[in-house]
């Protein structure tokens, strides 16, 4: 009779531990959100506050900003665990590492991706996005940001052992974000014009399922590489 925790229990345990850590490091996790808002504020300042123009480019701006904010937050998935040796302990766990990785990525999404959902309506309003597009915007954020965390986790796992991982991380991750950007922005734009958006949403969902099933394995392999 094994006293080892079941896989689900281990998953939940690690998820809760990461959420607890995030709660104790609130300030650090607020930064990407702040950055998201800040980047969006820059666009009207650079392009002029023409309402038609802003409304037209709002989906694109919001999604580019979401990509950059996700990029900025990625490092926190594994950085502190790598520095203090907790990552070694996770890799030496009796549970499959890919599942533990998924727990960590889920926690990361809950504290960095989900908050974007809360501020996005506000920003959409400020940019004058048509009200009809806002539910679609939120839906794309809900489906799209977990993909960003999942793909980003591979990139961080590959670069967490490097002294100057930041620049190279963006080079690795941003090209892989292109499909999310295209489908999410195009869905929101179509919704603003009153068109059908289900095709894009299905593509995003397919992409989400693909990343959930593949990314944790790649991330686990990359972490093993990084600690050695």
């Amino acid at each position, binding site marked *: 009779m094994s006293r080892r925790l079941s896989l689900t229990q281990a998953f939940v345990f690690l998820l809760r531990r990461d959420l607890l850590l995030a709660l104790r490091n609130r300030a650090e996790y607020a930064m990407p959100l702040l950055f998201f808002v800040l980047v969006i504020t820059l666009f009207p300042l650079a392009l002029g506050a023409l309402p038609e123009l802003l409304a037209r480019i709002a989906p694109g701006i919001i999604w580019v900003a979401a990509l950059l904010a996700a990029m900025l937050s990625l490092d926190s998935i594994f950085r502190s665990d790598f520095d203090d040796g907790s990552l070694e302990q996770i890799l030496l766990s009796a549970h499959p590492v890919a599942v533990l990785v998924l727990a960590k990525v889920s926690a990361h999404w809950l504290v960095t991706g989900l908050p974007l959902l809360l501020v996005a309506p506000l920003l959409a309003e400020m940019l004058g996005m048509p009200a009809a597009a806002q539910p679609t915007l939120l839906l794309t954020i809900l489906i799209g940001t977990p993909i960003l965390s999942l793909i980003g986790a*591979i990139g961080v796992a*590959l*670069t967490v*052992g*490097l002294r*100057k*991982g930041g620049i*190279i991380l963006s*080079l*690795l991750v*941003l*090209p*892989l974000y*292109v*499909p999310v950007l*295209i*489908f999410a922005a*195009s869905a929101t734009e179509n919704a603003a014009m009153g068109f059908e958006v289900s095709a894009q949403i299905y*593509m995003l969902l397919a*992409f989400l399922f*693909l990343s959930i099933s*593949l990314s944790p394995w*790649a991330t686990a*392999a*990359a972490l093993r*590489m*990084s600690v*050695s």
Partner: protein
Amino acid sequence: MFLWFHKLGSPPHFYRIAGKWIPWLSWIFLMLLLAGLYGGLIEAPPDYQQGESYRIIFVHVPAAWMSLFIYVVMAFCGAVIIVWRMKLAEVVLISSAPIGASFTFLALVTGSLWGKPMWGTYWVWDARLTSELILLFLYLGIIGLHNAIEDKRVASRAVAILALVGVVNIPIIHYSVEWWHSLHQGATVTKFDKPSIHWSMLIPLLLMALAFQVYYVLALFQKCRVELLQRERNSKWVEEL
């Protein structure tokens, strides 16, 4: 099976074989290149729509094919590295990256050179050019990551993972860019998409593709030999050379 694989992949063995092949490959490449260029630039008739400027496809299209082909080779090496930890695959993967990046760059440059007479501008956000640009970033990511990690065996594992992740993503990126393009520029015709191609153009095109293929193997062999010597500089077989 494994033993056979092992022998083929043994660095001294490969070093010798590659050295023997290089002169032959050089001649084959030169002949294919000359034949292809002659067929493409002199024999093939001018296009009835695009005049002489279409002739750049004899470089552009094979370069674009090679850029994808080499990435697939790298991903295959990545799988071999992860499963068998074969040293030669590591060397082939990382030696392929700059060659693939060069072909991608060549495809981009020739593509935009063609854009000038066709559209009056060097860059249009054409679906294939855009995909090609993103592919270039993927190549540069692999090269950058490999350079950033000091221990070369660790670096090889890192790029192996990255190449595999990339190869899963390339079709998705390609498809999404096509989608994006059709959405925003539905009216323009993709430029290299011709319904049919006359054999007088097809033959030089295939010759050029073959020439590029041989060039890849040639360049790969040379790079691999250098990389092998560097990595194995402390081993017995290198000292005996």
